């Protein structure tokens, strides 16, 4: 599937390359891709652009498939909530997408659950070409969306659509660990048939009395109590959750589109909860910024209303980018001067620093090394 070629003469390329000290990695051994692979794996002999073999496919819903993947021998373990980058090359252009690992850690094989997005380039390419025996390029497990090892009385998992993938893995892991804590699971979907992992969730509810799943469907049945036909937001959650939850012993996880996450995050923050973990599937709506960016190398200055990545692209710069939502760090660039606001956290930072272009908005004028 991929055209990342291995050298014909020496299959020992990875051996030669992995032994090179950092300062010797110039030219075709440029640090670019290797660097983050090594950092993430924490090992010197991390594979360059690891690949995995597709073992099997399993249909979850009409438009969602779980792919079982077998990575190489030295592939590191993952923690529930983490994801992998899957890279494919379509017509010469490299596209990378993040997929949460939905399998059980330590099982040997990895599982990712891919939803066919309408008009989606990578999801369709993957689902159309990934058959048993195919090889795809993946990354080591990445992500900070993790369960915290601390005394917990309640877990609250919120998700919408395909945002269920990481929280499903986390909820299952929590339950299987034998915890006595309440595990609340709120999920929004279009209809009963589009709930990914529906059967598994029903089995978990049957097996674990502390598992409390609630579904919020667009096309719901008014008579079905566990499948409501209201919108899932903080107000709806608040009406179900006990009023006496202790913020210090509650872990909250939210995963889905920007507005969905923003609403829940805002609600919980106001209610006194901190350390809420969020994974944005799309960026939240932000007010149009009034700042502008001066791109030093390209000698252009543009207004940056949405974010700096789009500003760079408007200025004609084919900036390096990846997920475009603050997760993968591909768009990281160097800001020389000026103040920026992080779209996800609202935090403002100034001065000379590396920033993720896709989630920053300039406040005033900034100078970027692009």
């Amino acid at each position, binding site marked *: 599937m991929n055209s990342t070629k291995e050298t014909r003469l020496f299959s020992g390329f990875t051996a030669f390359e992995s032994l090179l*000290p950092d300062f010797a990695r110039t030219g*075709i051994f440029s640090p*670019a891709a290797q660097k983050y692979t090594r950092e993430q794996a924490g090992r010197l002999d991390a594979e360059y652009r690891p690949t995995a073999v597709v073992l099997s496919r399993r249909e979850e819903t009409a438009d969602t498939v779980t792919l079982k993947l077998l990575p190489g021998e030295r592939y590191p373990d993952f923690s529930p909530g983490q994801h992998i980058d899957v890279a494919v090359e379509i017509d010469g*252009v490299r596209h990378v997408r993040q997929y949460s690992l939905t399998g059980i850690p330590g099982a040997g094989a990895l599982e990712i659950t891919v939803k066919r997005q309408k008009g989606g380039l990578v999801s369709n390419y993957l689902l159309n070409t990934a058959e048993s025996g195919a090889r795809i390029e993946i990354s080591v497990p990445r992500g900070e969306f993790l369960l915290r090892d601390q005394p917990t009385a309640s877990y609250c998992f919120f998700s919408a659509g395909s945002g269920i993938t990481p929280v499903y893995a986390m909820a299952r892991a929590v339950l299987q660990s034998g915890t006595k804590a309440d595990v609340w699971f709120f999920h929004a979907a279009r209809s009963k048939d589009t709930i990914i992992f529906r059967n598994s969730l029903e089995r978990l509810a049957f097996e674990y009395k502390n598992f409390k799943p609630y579904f919020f469907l667009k096309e719901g049945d008014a008579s079905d109590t566990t499948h409501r036909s209201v919108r899932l937001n903080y107000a709806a959650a608040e009406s179900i959750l006990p009023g006496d939850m202790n913020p210090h012993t509650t872990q909250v996880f939210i995963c889905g589109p920007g507005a969905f996450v923003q609403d829940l995050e805002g609600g919980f923050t106001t209610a006194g909860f901190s350390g809420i973990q969020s994974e944005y599937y799309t960026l939240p709506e932000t007010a149009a910024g009034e700042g502008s960016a001066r791109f030093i190398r390209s000698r252009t200055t543009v207004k940056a209303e949405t974010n700096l990545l789009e500003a760079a692209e408007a200025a004609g710069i084919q*900036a*390096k980018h990846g997920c475009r939502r603050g997760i993968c760090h591909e768009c990281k660039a160097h800001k020389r001067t000026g103040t920026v606001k992080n779209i996800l956290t609202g935090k403002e930072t100034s001065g000379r620093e590396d920033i993720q272009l896709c989630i920053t908005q300039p406040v005033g004028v900034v100078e970027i090394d692009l």
Partner: protein
Amino acid sequence: MKNRKLTPEEMNAFGAELDALRAETLAKVGKEDAEYIRDIVQLCRDHELLGRELLKSDGAKPADWLRGTYALGIAKILENMEIGHNIMHGQYDFMNDPDFHSQTYEWDTASTSSSWRHSHNYMHHTYTNVVGKDRDLGYGILRLTDDEPWKPQYLAQPISNFMLSVLFEWGVALHDLEAENLKSGKKQLTLQELKPILSKMFSQAAKDYVYFPVTAGKNALPVLFGNITANLMRNVWAHAIIFCGHFTEKAETFTVEETENESRGAWYLRQLRGSSNLKGDWWFHILTGNLSHQIEHHLFPDVPAWRYAQMAPKVQEICEKYGQHYNTGSFTKQYGEVLKRIFRYSLPDSWFKKSETAALSA
């Protein structure tokens, strides 16, 4: 062929035709280009691994040392010319692959990717052949036009050119520091600027002259000499090709005044008039990083270089239509003119006044 003076309308039409050619070519950029650059990288990788391995295991045997050094030299030439230079121009940025992106590529030579992109992509390509602004005109040490007044130090020019050739990667590394402006006080040096440059120079030397020899065990010396020679091969080759691009006899220079309020057509014209091509076979074009198509490169720096050969016939057609000279020739002819130019300007102008005025009025 003498260049026809163009009216403003013709100038605009000239620019428009070249713009159209560029758009037409960029529309085709995609899978083919990605496959091409991957193939070239693979070729380079094979040569580098073969070369370094041969030097390490059999470098003590003269025949193998020659083969190993040659392979490594070819790898370095490919990496410098066809791969590094073109990637850093952003030609392969469309792939969005960190291995081929101008923002993350760090080429295998003493100069940093960052300072190169400033002095070359920006300064040289914007102010091409503009006296006083394009510092590639002589690299601050050679006199190549009569815009620069003669000084006795230029008598040593053929020697400094030879030294520049042999030590080209180090000259380029220091190029962005603007030594001649530091001396005159026009520019201040900051530690921030100097640090990455010195760091890269140091680590490149450590890579080829310490790390590889030391890890070669008994063949440390053959590896050391092999690496020195391979770098020398790349330096001399790059210097020669680059000089052929702008310092042939008819390559023109321009004044700052001439380029004021330059229209797009006029910019294209300056790029054309300041550049010269080299004729050759497909393998020659690859080894020069397609700088054998210096004209096309200067007209279209962000188009993947392997496409210049396709674009050349159309460019020549357009030049003929507008009565402009398309400077091309064999390597011997063009390089001969470059050497002649270096010698000519190493001597005072007064020696040549009579014959030159005669030639001008002819």
